[in-house]
Structures are given as C-alpha cells and as structure tokens.
C-alpha cells in the first residue's frame, strides 16, 4: 500500500520534505546537547549568522562550540550514517545476501592498514595524514578484492569470498604492523580509530563527507529499479533488460567509494551498514525507490543520535561511536525484529 501511494507526486514530495525537516531538527538537537548544554535558539541563531549573515547577537564561545565543533560533527555523522546504510542496502540487493555490509569489500580492513602504515610506520613521511592513508589503503584493498573476484568467476559467491579473503589479509597486515612496531599508546589510539571516532572532525571533513553522501544517494536512486530487478537473481535481472555488468560496476564502485571516504574520515563504524537497511525493510518492504532513501534517512538519524550518546553517556569522556552503534542499535534492532511482523 505504501509502495502504491508513494507514486503519487504530492505524497512523495511531502515525504521528502518531512525527512529533511526531521534531519534538520536532529542536527540542531545534536548541536545543542553536550557537556555544556546550549539552547536550541542559540543554535538556530548561530546557523542563521553563518549561513546568511543574519547578525543575531550570540555569545562567541557558544557560537564557536555550536558551529565549529558540534554542527560539523553532526553533519559528518549524518552523511556517514546515510552513506553506510545506502552501501549496505545496495550490496545486500546486488549480492543477494542479507549479511552483506559495506565492509564486505575489504574496505575497512584496507583503511586500517593504510592508517597504521601512516601513523606507525610513517609511510609518506608526513606528506599526508591518517585519513589520506586510510583512503589509499581502502582503495588498494578494494582493487585487490575486485581483481580476485574477477579472477574467481564474477559470481556473487566469488565477490563475497574474495571480500572475506581481502579483509582477512589486510586485517592481518594491520595486526602485524601494530604488534611489531606500535607502542602501547599508539596501539590504543589505533584501536580507538578502528572503532570509529568523530572527535577530530571539523568542517573540512564535512565538506568531503556531505557531497559524497548526496552523490551516492543520487547514483543509487538512479538505479533503484535495476536493484529491484535483482530480486530473483542476476539472470532474472538480465532478462528484464538490466545491463547487469554495468550496474555492478557502477553500484559496487559507488558503494566502495562512499565507504572509503567515510571510513577514512571517521574510522570503521560497524552495525550501521549491516542492520539499518534491514530495519528500513521492515517499514517499507523491498522496493528500492523507497528503501534507499529511507535507509539513508534512518542511517543518518541513527548515527547523529549515536554520536550524541557517545558524547554524553560517560561524563568527561567520549566513547568510540562504534561501541554505541552496536550497544544501542542491537537491542533496537531486536525490538524491530520481534515486532516487525505485527507492524506490517
């Protein structure tokens, strides 16, 4: 029923509008909550000042916290959540596997190898930072996995197995470098980074993450019908007129790129890419025209919320966001899983 109604343009526009409002509110909320609580009104005024120079009178310290720290961070969290959830939804559909997630393609393992190579081995001799190293690592790992999958015969099974092999290889490399060369302090830092960490995030990161998430969303939405056609497998999609190989290259490529960009900024945040698409499926079913935007929305809201919790749950300490996503997300998902059938 929902699927039918969504084809009415009015309904669709208002749903998109509601989603944007919801997203905006969650960002404002995230910017107001923290160690020092800042009223939402101050947050709004600060945003107005920066976006169209409204010239409201705001305490400069509050304004600095809101704009430079919390808002940039919330934008990155939202982009990251949306991108990871999208990648997960796309890969689950393409590979016909409910356990597929953005890290299946070896990307997070490669990113961690790249990051430790820069941070511990000093690869690049200070020419570039951790995130550039992580990005290069993830691209190398993805290239490795793709080549392996092509050699192994291109089937969905081959892609999954190649991904596992690649992830294992690069995780082993990371462990090797960490145990061989890292001090205890460095090892702890890397561990923190691997679990996902938004603390160092500022506007330059947001200006990478946000456009990436938007481009990813548009590319995936463009292929929503093609993804639907994969319901009964690759051959069925081909017989429905879908250029299977091209769709594979484009969609796996964009998923990998989104994941690589996000991981290189915030580390590998687990759970979102695997579980959010399933949660979204419980609400709107399997039509990707609805599933993709809803996955992106839930992913964004979820990660913004998880980031807020990670900042406030232990006073004076910021927990890795990956811990929160699983800690909060797993019970939430369990609830949906149990009551989902009643909902539909």
């Amino acid at each position, binding site marked *: 029923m929902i699927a039918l109604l969504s084809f009415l343009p009015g309904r669709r526009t208002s749903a998109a509008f509601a989603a944007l409002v919801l997203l905006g509110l969650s960002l404002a909320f995230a910017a107001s909550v923290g160690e020092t609580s800042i009223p939402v009104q101050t947050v709004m005024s600060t945003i107005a000042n920066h976006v169209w120079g409204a010239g409201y009178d705001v305490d400069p310290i509050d304004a600095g916290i809101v704009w430079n720290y919390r808002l940039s961070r919330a934008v990155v969290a939202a982009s990251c959540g949306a991108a990871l959830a999208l990648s997960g939804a796309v890969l689950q559909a393409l590979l016909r596997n409910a356990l597929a997630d953005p890290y299946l393609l070896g990307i997070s393992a490669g990113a961690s190898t790249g990051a430790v190579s820069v941070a511990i081995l000093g690869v690049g001799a200070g020419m570039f930072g951790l995130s550039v190293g992580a990005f290069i690592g993830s691209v190398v790992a993805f290239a490795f996995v793709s080549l392996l999958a092509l050699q192994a015969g291109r089937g969905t099974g081959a892609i999954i197995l190649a991904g596992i092999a690649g992830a294992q290889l690069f995780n082993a490399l990371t462990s090797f470098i960490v145990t061989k060369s890292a001090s205890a302090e460095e090892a702890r830092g890397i561990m923190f980074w691997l679990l996902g960490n938004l603390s160092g995030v500022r506007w330059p990161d947001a200006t990478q993450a946000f456009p990436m998430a938007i481009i990813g969303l548009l590319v995936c939405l463009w292929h929503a019908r093609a993804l639907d056609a994969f319901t009964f497998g690759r051959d069925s999609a081909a017989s429905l*007129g879908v250029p299977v190989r091209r769709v594979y290259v484009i969609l796996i490529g964009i998923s990998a790129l989104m994941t690589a960009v996000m991981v290189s900024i915030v580390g590998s945040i687990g759970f979102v890419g695997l579980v959010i698409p399933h949660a979204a499926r419980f609400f709107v079913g399997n039509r990707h025209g609805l599933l993709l935007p809803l996955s992106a929305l839930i992913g964004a809201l979820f990660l913004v919320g998880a980031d807020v919790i990670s900042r406030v749950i232990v006073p004076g300490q910021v927990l890795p966001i990956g811990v929160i996503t699983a800690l909060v997300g797993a019970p939430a998902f369990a609830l949906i899983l149990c009551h989902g059938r009643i909902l539909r």
Partner: protein
Amino acid sequence: MTLELRNISWSVGFKKIVRDVSLRVEQGEFLGIIGPNGSGKTSMMSVLAGIRPPSDGMALLGDQPMRKVGRRNLARRIGFVEQQADTSDRITVHEAVSLGRTPYLSLLSPWSAIDDDIVTSALESVGMGNMADRIWHTLSGGEKQRVHIARALAQQPDYLLLDEPTNHLDIHHQLGLLELVHALPVTVVAALHDLNHAALFCDRIAMMDGGKLTAIGTPSEILTQQNLRDVFGVEADIETQSDGRCHIRYRVRNQMGVQTKKGRVA
C-alpha cells in the same frame, strides 16, 4: 519478427557447452527443446533469451544481432522464465509481477495506471488475479511458477521462453501450467523434461545431445524409437493416438527382474 540462432556456440572457460546450434523459431508456434541432462538445453535457452552472448555465431532478433538490439529492447520482446528463481525477500505477488514492467520504465516514463492494468491482466491470465497481495514465500511451487510466467507476460513479449517450467510440480499442476502456456497468444519455446508432455503440447520439437542440436521436426518425426534409444538411452514403444499425437510407453529392461527393498516383484 523472427528469433534465430545462427551457428552459435557457448563455452564456460575452455569447455564448450553448446556447439554450432542453428535454430529458427517460427511465429506463433510452441517449440519444445528436449535432451538428456547436461545436453546444453539451459545454456542454449539463455543464449536464445539474449542474457548470454554466444561465444561464436550469431543470435538474432528480427534479423538484427541481439547485441545491437540492446538489453531493454530485448526484454520488451522476450520474456524468460528460469528453471529455478527464488528469493528470500518479502515481496508480494503484485510486486514480483511488477518487475516485468522494468524494461518499460525510466525516470521520464515512471509507473502509471497503464502498468497497473498490465500487471493485473497478466495475473489474471495465469489465474492468480485474486492473489496479488499474497507474500511470495507463502506460495506453493506451482503458484510461484505461474507468478514467474505472469511476470514474463507483463513484459508484453512476442516470445515466451521457459526453462523446464514444470520442474517440482505435481502432475496436475504440470499439465495445468502447460495448458495455460499453450493457450497464451505468444510464441513459446520451452525446455521440457517429460517427453510425453512435449508430444502433447509442442508443434515442433528440437532435440539436443552433447551440446548439439541433433534434430528438429514435428513430435512424431523426433520422438522415434531410434532417437529415444540413441539420445536418451531408453527403450520405448511409440503409439500414435487417434488425434495424431504420439504417446511414449517406456520399457524397463528385464522387467521381471526389478528388485524392491522387500524382494522380488511378483
């Protein structure tokens, strides 16, 4: 509009699965493809459906190589029902059949009321008009197969290609499905396991053996004692019925010596 294979071969790695097959599908006919397991029926069907390019030779639709026709246009002309296509997704029957409209939809021509009508009439033509809201995994094997055929019909094809459509169905549903397909106003190419079904429904039969198309003709030309012995390795008597259709009565070698678990059959 013609559908034709010209000297096509298809290989996996270095192994040739289909060798040098030429075949022309006539407008409006029911063409059966028979052959023992591993004779290349499925591979040949997928080349004919345009989802695998031949490694040699040419697959043509309307005198144009399929490569040039393009995937979307092919999907508007040829509906293909695979041997076994299942999904673990929670989709309704209506959603499954809607997939058949994929080759007609784009950003500029989104889903419309016409598509709804086509999906509804496709479901009705397979006798499942009242089951549109059922969830896929609650369907029986026969119902699933009929939904697949409805999905293919929603593509509004000129050609309906079926790869062993009656697998895993009981005899009632096997016959029901073939009768249904036979009555549809499309050209049908079906790979069939049961030779008596082929004899009952086909206008022509193509026989495959070892990747080659060894013979093509009317059922009574193809289903001969000689062919059954050489290609399928079975002994059989062919009877011609009053309606001109032939019927195969299989003979088990050394009938009196068949062993059961309990002992000798009386």
